[in-house]
């Protein structure tokens, strides 16, 4: 095969990496997923005929702390990516570890919160608020969990020296997913916890 033909084999029409385009496409689709869940929550806000109301159940301090952690985790993963792209392994591993810690803490906070609310009398079945609250925040939390697993995988690869600058795109793609999950929470936090 000629060198020219060989070059043709690997170029993309836009010059952009297909995997990066794919994760953005997936993120675009997921916007509709969360929009539908958020719409359901908003449509049913104030319509429960019984049971605990948001004002009686939701607690601001803990979730605010979790929100801040999730926001900082976006900063940390961007710093980790910078480290990966620059070949600074210590920076990569350190900030990636911090990201994972924040993400895991967020999930932990949510598990604690859910357990606490169940004790206070709010379950999936209790009323519309319970159904829509747990479904919306639960699916978000599931997305965070998947993100944590993904980042842990990359963390292990980084520890083994398998995340050099040429492979930084792998972290970039995971980071984009992670930022999206954060951005969804940026919408959910005020809508659910602050708008009563």
């Amino acid at each position, binding site marked *: 095969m000629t060198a020219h033909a060989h070059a043709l084999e690997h170029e993309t029409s836009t*010059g952009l990496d297909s995997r990066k385009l794919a994760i953005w496409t997936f*993120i675009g689709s997921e916007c509709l997923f969360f929009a539908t869940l958020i719409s359901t929550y908003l449509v049913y806000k104030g319509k429960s005929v019984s049971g605990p109301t948001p004002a009686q159940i939701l607690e601001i301090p803990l979730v605010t702390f979790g929100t801040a952690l999730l926001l900082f985790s976006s900063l940390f993963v961007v710093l980790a990516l910078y480290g990966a792209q620059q070949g600074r392994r210590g920076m990569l591993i350190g900030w990636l570890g911090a990201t994972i810690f924040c993400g895991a803490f967020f999930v932990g906070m949510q598990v604690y919160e859910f357990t606490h609310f169940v004790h206070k009398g709010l379950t999936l079945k209790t009323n519309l608020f319970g159904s829509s609250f747990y479904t919306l925040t639960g699916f978000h939390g599931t997305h965070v969990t998947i993100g944590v697993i993904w980042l842990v995988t990359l963390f292990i690869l980084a520890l083994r020296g398998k995340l050099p600058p040429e492979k930084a795109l792998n972290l970039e793609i995971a980071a984009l997913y992670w930022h999206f999950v954060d951005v969804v929470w940026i919408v959910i936090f005020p809508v659910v916890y602050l708008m009563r």
Partner: protein
Amino acid sequence: MDAHPEKHEHAHPTPGLYAKIGLVLFVLTALEVGLYEATYGETAGPLAEHLRPFFVPLLLMLSAAKFALVAMFYMHLKQDSRLFSGVFVFPIIIATVVIVSLIVLFAYHYSIA
């Protein structure tokens, strides 16, 4: 199919810039919570009455600002190809139309029930 390595954009953000954005995000979140406390919280003072009609729009603006900062800087949309922004923004527009339509349809529905 592999693309050749991504071209580096000019004015690539530095860790310093990222950290500053992080601080702004933190402040915006504090403002959101502060706004809530001032309007509906136990520590709400005489200002609360005046804030109530502006509460939702102000809150939405604060979250929109956070959303935009994360998207433009952390997700790199400001420096990256416009195609990525398009692939993100178009569904957001459709998503917003869906959310607003459903709110309106159900508000209307209940008001005539």
